[in-house]
């Protein structure tokens, strides 16, 4: 069994999780503080990928990143770089698809933050940077962790947009989910089933981790 799809899926999910970890927190922090109208509009826009079918996201991504489209053509011309059909092309797809998960959970966490804590901290003379990292982030940590793990799990299983923008090339762009589909299509059910088991095992571990984290945080918070 060639393990390339496992390794490829993990690195794609890993990289996109790192990206959305920062992007999600950043967006959530500023949008939670934004005026209502701005908040409403941005919120809809940023949450859209969560409800759109992944194929639609893939289609839209191809419309901008494809070799004959605006951004795709620019990179091809100036850097001789094709943005589609490489292993890392899938990162575009997973990042867009999982961003709302991270953004939503972080925003919930930030909005649940007790504003009297930062008000008190400010009057005590603590800097806003200190307040963000030492008071707000620890307070919101359970939500942020849960969002990160969920996003990673979802990235690992992304199929629709990934298959459109990175395709399926064994040993190059194949991920677990595209491999399962390909194996099933070519009647190799035995091997497909093994990949299914791999996928289920990983998801199981991830969700278990989320639950354990939440329980621990809840215990720490209650006392």
């Amino acid at each position, binding site marked *: 069994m060639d393990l390339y799809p496992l390794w490829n899926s993990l690195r794609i999910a890993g990289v996109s999780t790192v990206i959305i970890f920062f992007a999600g927190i950043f967006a959530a922090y500023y949008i939670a503080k934004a005026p209502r109208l701005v908040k409403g509009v941005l919120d809809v826009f940023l949450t859209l990928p969560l409800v759109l079918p992944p194929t639609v996201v893939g289609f839209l991504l191809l419309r901008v990143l494809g070799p004959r489209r605006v951004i795709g053509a620019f990179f091809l011309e100036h850097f001789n770089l094709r943005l589609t059909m490489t292993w890392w092309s899938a990162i575009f797809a997973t990042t867009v698809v999982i961003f709302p998960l991270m953004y939503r959970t972080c925003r919930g966490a930030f909005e649940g933050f007790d504003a009297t804590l930062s*008000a008190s*901290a400010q*009057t005590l003379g603590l800097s806003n940077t200190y307040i963000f990292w030492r008071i707000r982030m620890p307070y919101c940590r359970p939500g942020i962790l849960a969002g990160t793990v969920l996003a990673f799990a979802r990235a690992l299983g992304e199929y629709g947009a990934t298959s459109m923008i990175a395709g399926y090339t064994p040993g190059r762009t194949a991920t677990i989910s595209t491999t399962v589909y390909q194996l099933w299509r070519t009647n190799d059910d035995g091997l497909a089933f093994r990949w299914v088991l791999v996928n289920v095992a990983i998801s199981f571990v991830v969700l278990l981790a989320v639950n354990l984290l939440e329980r621990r945080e809840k215990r720490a918070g209650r006392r």
Partner: protein
Amino acid sequence: MSLIVDIEKKLSGFTLRMSFEAGDETLALLGASGCGKSMTLRCVAGVERPDRGRIVLNGRTLFDSEKRVNLPPQQRRVGLMFQNYALFPQMTVYQNVRCGARRHLKGAAREEAVRQALDAFGVGSLAGRLPGQLSGGQQQRVALARMLVGEPDILLMDEPFSALDSHLRFRMEQEVHDAIRRFGKTVLLVSHSRDEVYRMADSVAIVNNGRVERIGALKDVFADPGTRAGCVLTGCKNISAISPLENGQVWAEDWGVPLALPLRPGADAVGIRMHDVRPGQGPNTLRCRAAEVIENPFSVTVMLRPVEAPASAAPIGWEMEKPMWQALQAEELTVHLPPEAILQLKG
């Protein structure tokens, strides 16, 4: 040493227009919930920004919309306490108090100050605990230590006792009162509890609909609250609108009886505290029936309905010690309302 506040801020529903001064004393802002008293405190602390006006503390301008001064809360040197104490839940008691000493102390001096503050409030033995492991009273002591270790110029307390059970509240009130006396500078106390205010404050400002309706020495304001809202807030439950009668008396519209009193110009309502109704004959004698008798833990409240008043009239509450009611108990009672006990009110 003093605080001058003169600010305006538009809120949903009404506009806050607060204007008052306070010396080295405890000034209570007494008002119903949502009247703007907490918002005023937050504006002084700098965590909310008034639309216009100015705030001056001991000659230092904290906020002035015309001079475009708006000091961040970090530079205002104010101590702010919320009803939930706002202790940082992920930090230990020691770390919480140390946060209060970061502004002005370093190294060994800081650790020493933190130790002293913890011991001063009797929470030194709890230094390693997290706030969630403490009782309400302990949390409040930690909050006091954290606030005072930074040597602020003013203390701002927002309903500091409302999260406590009543038996704890009384004790913490005394502890906070002691801390305030040792502090010796201006303290703003926001509260909706007249008992709390009466026990702790030197002066009181009656706040209603975002304005100070009356401000003055505690006893003066309680003796003559001046407005309907002030009357209610200082705990007077018998209130009636009035209109002048031709014979020089006034007609108490809600109670349906005439009253003789030296009417002040502008007064359009009267009030009388339930303790101030007097038994027997006297000025403003009323023959009443006891419409209802309510027994409290240590007193009895009798709802009086004057015999001459129409059935739609509001009853007048009369509160007395239990033995008095036991001696008195009757269907029909004669009471009088002494003119000097009648509060004259506007608005």
